[in-house]
């Protein structure tokens, strides 16, 4: 059995799965249930000044008959009294000293408020802090949350205040509502943050009600942009994570990966791209805490299969494989191959290539089943047919290099090689 225990900034947890700061972590009963279910840690729902929430608060994007492919919310930070939160944090830490109990913070925009909040939370027993520079709604209008994270200078200033006071590890959570997460990331690392986490939610409208004409979620005939999360945001989160992991400054600090993680596979992908651990919100909100069981078991089995003993054996392993477009090998070529024994003659590959790719699939009429074959000389190896084929491994991509040597786009131009294959 592999060892899946995690050490993030010196904060230990039996596994690398934390619950992200959100409703699942906003009070003692939830957190106790989460720990009993097996979660490695929680980032307590963001504490700060007193707020008032509205109703309703959430909406979702369904896809292909599946609910909640994407999820959005217009909730604020914790709307419970600070004292109760602090008391409960103390109790939880006492009951579960082996778990990582981190507290998310978003104080008013001045040094005193931050210092006061930090002191209270440390006294309550917090093991680390996560600075919420990412909440995209409600708090921004008060100059907090994403309003801080979107401005590297303000972010830097706030982190400096925090570092003056904090005696426990500090993670800064980045907002994705920027062109690039790197500038703020660099700025807060320079200001001394111990680690980074990303992403928070992405500003969004999940849809418009076709009867009321009001977007979701609905609040008395109006709506606002909500923060988007869940499986739909995973690709964006992975990209942002990679830019942080590859940057020479931000890549040096531990990164907690967040955004659309629902399974152990998602988690492994984040870790391969540089996340030291991961945080989960939507998946738990959709299914409850019990999903942790398969996350741990799946990770363990995968590590055994790959021969990884500890998480550090693979964290960051894929980071160097993401390169610049102009460094890609132009002589690499692969073409689609259809396994006729597996093919169920649905024609999806054909119509997709015919209408929108390179007209590289032959159709031989049959009643009721047509036969589809690849025109090898036409195929550009785009993968589209393989992606749409409903049968696993029915279409495979077979390597057929154009030439053995590596050549990239710059070299190609220098050598004046021909353009436009098709």
């Amino acid at each position: 059995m592999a060892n899946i225990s995690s050490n993030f900034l010196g904060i230990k947890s039996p596994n690398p799965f934390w619950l992200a700061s959100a409703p699942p972590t906003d009070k003692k009963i939830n957190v106790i249930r989460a720990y009993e279910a097996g979660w490695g840690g929680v980032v307590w729902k963001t504490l700060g000044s007193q707020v008032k929430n509205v109703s309703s608060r959430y909406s979702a994007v369904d896809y292909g008959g599946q609910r909640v492919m994407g999820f959005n919310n217009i909730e604020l930070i914790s709307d419970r009294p600070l004292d109760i939160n602090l008391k409960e944090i103390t109790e939880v830490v006492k009951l579960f000293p082996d778990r990582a109990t981190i507290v998310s913070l978003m104080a008013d925009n001045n040094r005193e408020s931050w210092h006061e909040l930090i002191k209270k939370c440390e006294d309550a027993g917090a093991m680390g802090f996560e600075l919420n520079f990412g909440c995209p709604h409600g708090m921004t209008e008060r100059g907090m949350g994403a309003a801080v994270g979107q401005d590297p200078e303000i972010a830097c200033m706030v982190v400096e205040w925090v570092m003056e006071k904090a005696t426990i590890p500090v993670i800064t959570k980045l907002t994705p509502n920027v062109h690039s997460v790197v500038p703020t990331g660099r700025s807060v690392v320079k200001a001394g943050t111990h680690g980074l986490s990303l992403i928070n939610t992405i500003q969004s409208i999940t849809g418009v009600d076709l009867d009321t004409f009001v977007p979701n979620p609905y609040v008395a005939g109006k709506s606002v942009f909500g923060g988007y999360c869940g499986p739909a945001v995973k690709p964006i989160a992975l990209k942002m994570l990679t830019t942080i992991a590859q940057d020479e400054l931000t890549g040096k600090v531990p990164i907690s990966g967040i955004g659309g993680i629902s399974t152990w596979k998602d988690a492994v992908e984040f870790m391969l791209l540089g996340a030291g651990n991961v945080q989960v919100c939507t998946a738990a909100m959709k299914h409850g805490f019990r999903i942790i069981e398969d996350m741990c078991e799946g990770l363990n089995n995968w590590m055994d299969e790959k021969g990884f003993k500890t998480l550090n054996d693979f964290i960051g392993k894929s980071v160097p494989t993401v390169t610049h477009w102009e460094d890609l090998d132009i002589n690499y070529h692969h073409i689609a191959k259809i396994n006729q024994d597996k093919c169920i003659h649905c024609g999806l590959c054909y119509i997709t290539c015919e209408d929108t790719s390179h007209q590289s699939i032959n159709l031989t009429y049959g009643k009721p089943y047509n036969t589809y074959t690849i025109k090898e000389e036409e195929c550009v190896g785009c993968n589209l047919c393989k992606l749409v084929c409903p049968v696993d491994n029915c279409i495979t991509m077979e390597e057929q290099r154009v030439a053995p040597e590596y050549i990239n786009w710059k070299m190609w131009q220098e050598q004046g090689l021909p353009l436009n294959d098709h």
Partner: protein
Amino acid sequence: MAIQNNRLTAEQYEQNFSDIHPPFETHNAALVEANRCLFCYDAPCTKSCPTSINIPKFIKQITTENIKGSAHTIFQSNIMGAGCSKVCPVEKLCEGSCVYNLMDEPAIPIAKLQRYSTEKALANNWQLFERKKSTGKKVAIVGAGPAGLSCAHVLAREGVDVTIYEKESKGGGLMTYGIAAYKVTPQFCEDEVNYIVGIGGIEIKYNQELGKDLPAGRQGITLAKLQKNYDSVYLAIGVGLARQLAIPGEDLEGVEDAIKFIYEIRNTKYEKVNVGDKVAVIGMGMTAIDAATQAKRLGANEVTMVYRRTENEKPCTDVELDIAKLDGCNIIWLAAPKEIKGHGKVEQLVCSKMQLGEPDASGRRSPVDTGETFTLNVDMVIKAAGQIPYEALIKDCALNNNHGKLIIDANQSTNIKGVFAGGDAVNGGKEVVDAVQAGKDGAKAILNYIMPQMHE
């Protein structure tokens, strides 16, 4: 016990004749299946539908909650799409070709999804087609069965004024009078006919029989009269007469024709229909299955189906055979009726034991008498050895035919100019869906004939 009615309680009848393929209860239930559909290109299911319904499209439209669009897609190809969703032998048509079969996964329940959309259209009377301005052209159709109705709807859409002459007092043809009660109810058939004529421009004249020398009291029409009064005539009279067995004892009391038996079930209350205690059903087609299962469901103690070939040659599908088996019908293969015995009433059915001989011209191995016989003690014999066309009527009308089956050319036309035909009357008896397609083809040909300039 002998032949009698009222064998069961009201609840038992109710249960025995309830819908054999229950519909989706909720939109969600339909969505689960609709979302499984892969939206195949040049879809095998569509190619296996005689009316070529664009199946992936109508299923996709269920998932986008465009149910009107979904129903329109179905009706565009098959105006009896609602009825077909209940009576089509889909296991050998669309569902039989669904690509999921090739993954050894259950096929998409196409019929059930089709029923989902079309039932909503019928229930809400969504008239999804707009009839074009009247062209002043008039067409007479004989027979308000699937072929006639389908032809009428296409013509009506194009602005033709259609009059249907129907010998019965209800429309729908064998859909109303022949098909098993647990597949479609009389009420449904009536609703479907009303929905179809709802487009306007179609008048059905009931109790009007085409034929010469009518018995006193029956109003008559002749082909000549129709030809004179209309721009074109479409014959969709189906096949009606039951094939005789031509064995001794066929006239004993208790020997019934399956079509008549089923007609009664469809036309009277279940408790009023007579059925034997021990029933033999002759044949293994759809009609035989329907007769056997319904005899059982009416309360017969023992139902035995006898068929002269083996299971491999049976004309019904596996699914249908399973219905009969699940209803507890006995099946005897390689048995041909030789004689029906009894004193006034049926007492015994004597059968010859058969064996399969050499393949005939069509490659089918034909049954050969072994000389041995066996006897079944029965009090009722239902004959379902197929139907035969209205040969006399057709000959009287001087229409070219093959043993009563109308002969048409590639243009759906009979030998008489302006007189077209289709459906069971031409093919000798297939499925509803084939008749619907024939009606469409007929309508197209008629439009070409009466308005050549518009339909080049």
